[in-house]
């Protein structure tokens, strides 16, 4: 048990520090790198909770795809953060006011929060029983049977997104010289070379 709590504090502390660094770093590329560290620590916390599927998804999707995409965008766009932070003090009072109002509202909501007893019961007895199957398997069991229609339909949605992105952005440039290896290999000396006897004192015509 002590190892679990140690791991919890380790992941949480590093996670919080990394998250703070995402906000306070001046260099946007560093921000993204800290963000990746935050994701890893959050994934660790999910493993501790027994939700290994969410942890895997977090690493595969957020670290593997989203964060790397961010990194590309940040590097390509060349955002100057110091210019964006100009006027920070000017907007601070208004922003703080709205933030406080939101905080008070949230406090009201959570103050009046009651858990339904039925929900509590459901939480304690998950179906299917976690002792029989792990949650990756449980999700797979219904995703590929009960919800196979939606699974395939979502695949179509993603395909449309890909086709659409290509249709709207891909441009074929004419006049680009590309290396055609088959033509290079098929080229023979007699097609391109000719031996000419040049008489002394005269040039080639």
């Amino acid at each position: 048990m002590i190892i679990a709590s140690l791991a919890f504090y380790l992941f949480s502390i590093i996670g919080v520090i990394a998250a703070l660094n995402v906000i306070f770093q001046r260099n946007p590329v560093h921000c993204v790198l800290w963000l990746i560290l935050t994701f890893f620590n959050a994934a660790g916390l999910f493993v501790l909770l027994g939700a290994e599927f969410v942890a895997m998804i977090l690493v595969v999707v957020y670290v593997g795809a989203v964060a790397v995409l961010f990194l590309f965008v940040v590097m390509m766009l060349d955002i100057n953060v110091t210019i964006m932070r100009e006027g920070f003090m000017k907007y601070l009072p208004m922003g703080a006011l709205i933030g406080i109002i939101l905080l008070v509202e949230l406090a009201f909501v959570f103050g009046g929060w009651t858990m339904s007893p039925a929900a509590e019961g459901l939480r304690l007895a998950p179906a299917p029983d976690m002792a029989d199957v792990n949650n990756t398997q449980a999700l797979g069991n219904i995703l590929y049977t009960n919800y196979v229609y939606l699974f395939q339909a979502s695949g179509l949605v993603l395909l449309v997104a890909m086709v659409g992105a290509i249709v709207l952005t891909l441009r074929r440039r004419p006049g680009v010289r590309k290396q055609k290896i088959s033509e290079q290999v098929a080229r023979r000396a007699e097609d391109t070379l000719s031996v000419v006897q040049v008489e002394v004192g005269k040039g080639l015509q």
Partner: protein
Amino acid sequence: MSHLLQLITPALPEVFMAVAAMVLLLVGVFREKESTTLLTWLALAAMVVAGGLVIRSAPVTAFNGLFVVNGFTSYAKILMLVGAGLTSLLINSWAQREKTARNELPVLVMFATIGMMMMISANDLISLYVGLELQSLSLYVLAAYDRDNQRATEAGVKYFVLGALASGLLLYGSSLVYGFGGTTTFDGLATAVKAGPASLGLMIGVVFVIAGLAFKVSAVPFHMWTPDVYEGAPTPITAFFSVAPKIAGLCLFLRVLVGPFGNMIEQWQQVIIFISILSMGWGAVAALAQKNIKRLMAYSSIGHVGYALIGLVVGNEEGARGLLVYLLIYLFMNVGTFAVIMSMRVKGKNVEDISDLSGMAKNHPVMAAVLAALMFSMAGIPPLAGFLGKFYIFVAAVNAGFVWLAVVGLLASVISAVYYIRLIKIMYFDEPGTAFDAPDKLAGTLMVGCGVLMLVIFVLPSSLVDSAQAAARALFLG
């Protein structure tokens, strides 16, 4: 293998269309050179086959209650496929003419069509949403398809941003409905709603779902995107927007409200009455000031959605029948009108101002006569089909005790008649302007065909009304 076939049989038209779309995508890639005409005809063939499969399909609920097939969904799908097929021909001839054809164009239309088929057959809030997203994503790309044209990209971005907002509203409503109703399946929700008085949370959820759907069919007050998108998108793609998604959206609207929430009719009726009156009124009044004919058609379609929603307000079999007849006639009116708008070209350049129509009767007597017939039909003037559409809707309203709503509808259609007839006046009585180029064969055939249909439907409405009646009955049985 046979088990798999058995599993997908209920959704065979959709599965066939999806496989065909992917095959066409590959054909386009392997042929390398531009072959949109071939792909368009193949896509059309696929739509015809899918239509045949839809006709043959038997009523069933499949995929664990996520998907439903009945007489109503089949009717709606056929209508939508006809609209998509006709407009995809127009899209191809536009793309060839403007040299903007790329192989993905017919494939995107097909994907949008699959999304609409899934919307019509949705029997669960999740499958509704997935179908809607498949349709919307394809439409966003199609709106911005003419990517070097600033107005088209603007239309695409506006459509995308506002469409995402509408999807958000719909999802928020769905999550509330799920929270308070305990399930997302339509059948389960119907049982939950029947069980007792609807809770406040469920009602709020339904209102949000209505807002999301109203956005997709461009009903006031969720219509702001329509004029800009209709004006900016290429004309035949606008034609597609104004036909197929409207049919799918309104049929889905009907299925959602009378299916799972049928017992909450007293609650949602007020909302739909409000939306319907606003759409009819704003569609009529705002169109008066328009100078661009595509913007005019946008407001006209907003108005038409308002009339169709009366059929939804009534919420019984007669109302559903009225809505289906209305959609059928609306489909051919719009395809015909957009075929004319596509043919408004002077020396190879498109013109879109209403004033460009001046004196068209002298230069192009046939085209002017067809447009006049279509405009009279849109206004709902008797010897034409548009009258029948409004007639069945208003009769349903009167029979259900909504006499005042029918009167409001009549007043709105009188106001809208002003701008429809103004077009006719410009064509017939104004000084002739520059003559248009001769319309291409396809657009010419389509516009004359639709113009003649307006008369034919008026003379022989019985079989159409009977089939709509059968479809409406299937909706209330299943």
